[in-house]
């Protein structure tokens, strides 16, 4: 088993030897950020469990594997638009595909988008729209804090870029599908940027899919800036096979009166780590951060969240729920910061877990760091099994035990699903969760999970 130094050294070699390829095709701003980020990575390295923020997730086994890395866009030998079709009925979206972290070259043109909306690859955006891109790129995801972000920024070549201009309301959600399809084990680095301007509204759905059985590691970073009075929804649906590692860091900055809802649903995946950072940088923002995880076998999920109330008069709601079965392990860390003078803050946080087996483990640390006095903050966490009284109630009405348990579990999970503001997606996820809780593998068709187990 390789130790952490070997892993860090391998990345240093990759960075130095692949330098030419890394610089090629990227804008000067990206390359400059890249250089600084690598220096930060050299200091930080891949986070280990000695790092308090990664106490419950051991990344060494995830990184200790000879992955291939594509530093250049690989032509896809088939038409992905043909292979992949999202089968959610009545979910009418503007869909774009990404392959192994790169914006797919043959994406269909999005004809229904309002004027001025930009959806393209990051590399393309850096060239074509430098004034927007440079104002936001690398501004929210700080590389001197987290080794994974530093690594991402050092190796970042592409990802998706979405720009919603002032006052534009996009009715149909934009759906981004991250496809992993390779004939070798692969590490993908994906860097996304979303800019929502004043008074604009947008909903984005991000889905992950693995199309082959190879071992994948995805290290992605998404930066989001939501300007004044804008409304923005981000739904992330994680559904990959057991042999994959998802490291997903999201950084959201909110300006005054903006309203953001994010919902991260982890249905399946070998090792999942979500870092979710929100900064409420101006007054009167509202933030809703929700998440749900359903884990069994020896899957691992770790949701790490930080909500930073930098300015007064903001409201944040955070709620994560999880069901753990078999030998699955899960972790939740929530941290609410209320900075000095961020008065009249309201911040609520809650984490509930169901443990279904004695081999499953859940570690949760809901934290509050509060430096202002006129605030209303609360947090709570529970771990338990199903309510025996509720079970009895259902049994007494002639529902058999298995079905009763099913109903209760579904009700437990539904609280989070109910927060989704896109009706067809809500129904679809309800259905996926129901199937998932019945022990069937929930999958979209054309997905590799289908043949794997």
């Amino acid at each position, binding site marked *: 088993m390789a130790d952490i130094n070997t892993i860090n050294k391998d990345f240093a070699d990759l960075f130095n030897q692949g330098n030419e390829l890394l610089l090629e095709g990227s804008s000067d701003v990206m390359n400059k950020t890249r250089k600084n980020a690598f220096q930060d990575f050299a200091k930080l390295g891949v986070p280990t469990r000695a790092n308090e923020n990664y106490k419950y997730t051991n990344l060494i086994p995830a990184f200790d594997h000879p992955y291939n890395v594509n530093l250049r866009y690989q032509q896809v030998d088939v038409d992905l638009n043909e292979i992949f079709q999202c089968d959610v009925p009545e979910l009418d979206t503007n869909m774009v595909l990404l392959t192994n972290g790169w914006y797919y070259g043959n994406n269909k043109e999005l004809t229904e988008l309002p004027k001025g909306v930009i959806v393209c690859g990051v590399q393309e955006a850096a060239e074509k729209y430098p004034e927007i891109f440079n104002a936001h790129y690398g501004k929210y995801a700080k590389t001197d804090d987290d080794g994974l972000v530093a690594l991402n920024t050092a190796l970042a070549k592409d990802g998706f870029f979405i720009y919603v201009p002032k006052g534009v309301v996009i009715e149909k959600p934009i759906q981004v599908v991250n496809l992993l399809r390779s004939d070798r084990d692969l590490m993908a680095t994906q860097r996304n940027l979303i800019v929502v301007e004043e008074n604009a509204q947008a909903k984005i759905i991000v889905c992950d899919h693995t199309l082959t059985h190879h071992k994948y590691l995805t290290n992605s970073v998404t930066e989001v800036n939501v300007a004044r009075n804008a409304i923005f929804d981000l739904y992330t649906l994680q559904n990959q096979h057991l042999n994959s590692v998802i490291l997903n860091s999201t950084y959201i900055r909110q300006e005054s009166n903006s309203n953001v809802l994010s919902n991260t649903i982890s249905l399946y995946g070998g090792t999942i780590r979500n870092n979710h950072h929100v900064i409420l940088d101006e007054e009167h923002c509202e933030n809703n951060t929700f998440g749900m995880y359903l884990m069994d076998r020896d899957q691992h999920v770790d949701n790490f969240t930080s909500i930073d109330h930098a300015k007064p008069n903001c409201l944040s709601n955070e709620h994560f729920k999880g069901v753990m079965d078999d030998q699955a392990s899960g972790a939740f860390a929530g941290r609410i910061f209320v900075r000095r003078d961020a008065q009249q803050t309201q911040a609520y946080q809650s984490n509930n877990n169901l443990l279904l087996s004695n081999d*499953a483990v859940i*570690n949760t*640390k809901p934290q509050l760091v509060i430096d202002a*006095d006129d605030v209303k903050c609360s*947090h709570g966490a529970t771990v338990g099994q199903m309510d025996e009284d509720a079970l009895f109630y259902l049994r007494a009405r002639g529902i058999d035990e298995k079905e009763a348990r099913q109903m209760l579990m579904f009700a437990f999970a539904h609280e989070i699903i109910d927060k989704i503001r896109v009706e067809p997606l809500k129904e679809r996820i309800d259905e996926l969760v129901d199937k998932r809780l019945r022990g069937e593998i929930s999958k979209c068709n054309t997905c590799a999970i289908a043949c794997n187990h």
Partner: protein
Amino acid sequence: MAKEEQDKILNEVTESEYKYGFVTDIENDDIGKGLNEDIIRMISAKKKEPKFMLDFRLKAYRHWKTMKMPEWAYLDIPEIDYQDIIYYSTPKQKAKLESMDDVDPEIRATFDKLGIPLDEQKILANVAVDVVMDSSSVKTTFKEALAEKGIIFCSFSEAVQDHPDLIQEYMGTVVPIQDNFFAALNSAVFSDGSFVYIPKGVRCPMELSTYFRINAENTGQFERTLIVCEEESYVSYLEGCTAPMRDENQLHAAIVEIIVKDNAEVKYSTVQNWYPGDKNGKGGIYNFVTKRGICEGVNSKLMWAQVETGSAVTWKYPSTILKGDGSSSEFYSVAVTNNHQQADTGTKMIHIGNNTKSTIISKGISAGKSNNSYRGLVKVSKNCEGARNFSQCDSLLLGDKCGAHTFPYLEIGNQSAKVEHEATTSKIGEDQIFYCNQRGINTEDAIGLIVNGYAKEVINKMPMEFAVEAQKLLQISLEGSVG
């Protein structure tokens, strides 16, 4: 109520001075500053300790040298020069004392000022007191009365001389020397402390109490308490601490070990009122304490109750290992910080035995420019069936320059566990004060009333005379402050 008036009252009350800050003028016998193996040999020799004690100390010291001061706490501690501390200091006195009259009048005056019922009052109060000043135990009262029942209550040094077998059997079993930086340091240099042994089936007829006081300059205090409760026994133990006002910081690193056997019960109450430093954050005690109990036997019980108002920096996590089936533990804490005080305190409940229960009630109150953190761990091990925990950690903020933080850790490895944690942070509502004002209660009293009500849940768990003192302390510390 006008804001200025509230502020005025706030200032008056939050700026009240530390009332235990006198220095007692008695000669001390110390060994000079610094720490090395020779110093440890010297401490051990001065105390005429058997060889196993010296070996224990040296082992701890060698391990300590390999360790680093922990940095994970939400505290800002200036670097401590461990060579600049006197590790052993004892009030000079003649031979052993038989009656209270023999105690040095200066020391007695000190304890009179502290209001410790060391004299005749102690009989009324029915409290047996062991007093630890700087590093040595001054006098243990009521020893004979307790001995009749087979209870051993004496200073740690005496126990080492008189009951070496018990010390050897239990010392370091709950807090091993490798446990943490401060525990290793204490194990190497500890000078005295208290030892309690309650034999099988005995219910200790009175409350046992220890008062700790740091008096001499530049000294650190390192005491060690060991409580062993045999089957079906019961004891309630109280601990109080004060120190004089000095400009430099002083170090206090103690260890408390408690062993509770089948069906036994221990109550451990602390009123910690070390000198917190002045208004500008100068001076004060660094309080780094490792307290841990093990509920070894079935249905054993351990309760921690603490009122923390003192110390410049507090780093303290009284914890319980629930090993025996059906054992239970409760933790009640009120931590008050004011001015520049910092506290990172909480508890650990480690559930190992089946059907074990724990309750955590923590109330933090911060005022001035202080930072007050709760840090706690609830761990349910894989094979522990039917564990139950309830935690509640509330914080009250008085003033807009202070901070209140909560860092709970829940590690659950068994599906039958039921664990709940909840916390709230708020300030005293203007509506609450208005309500009291309307009924003719002035703002200062109203705040006292609200804070007391807030802390009541914890104070109620303390023995009577401690509860009274705790309530007074709360009032001195910050009654009346609102932002």
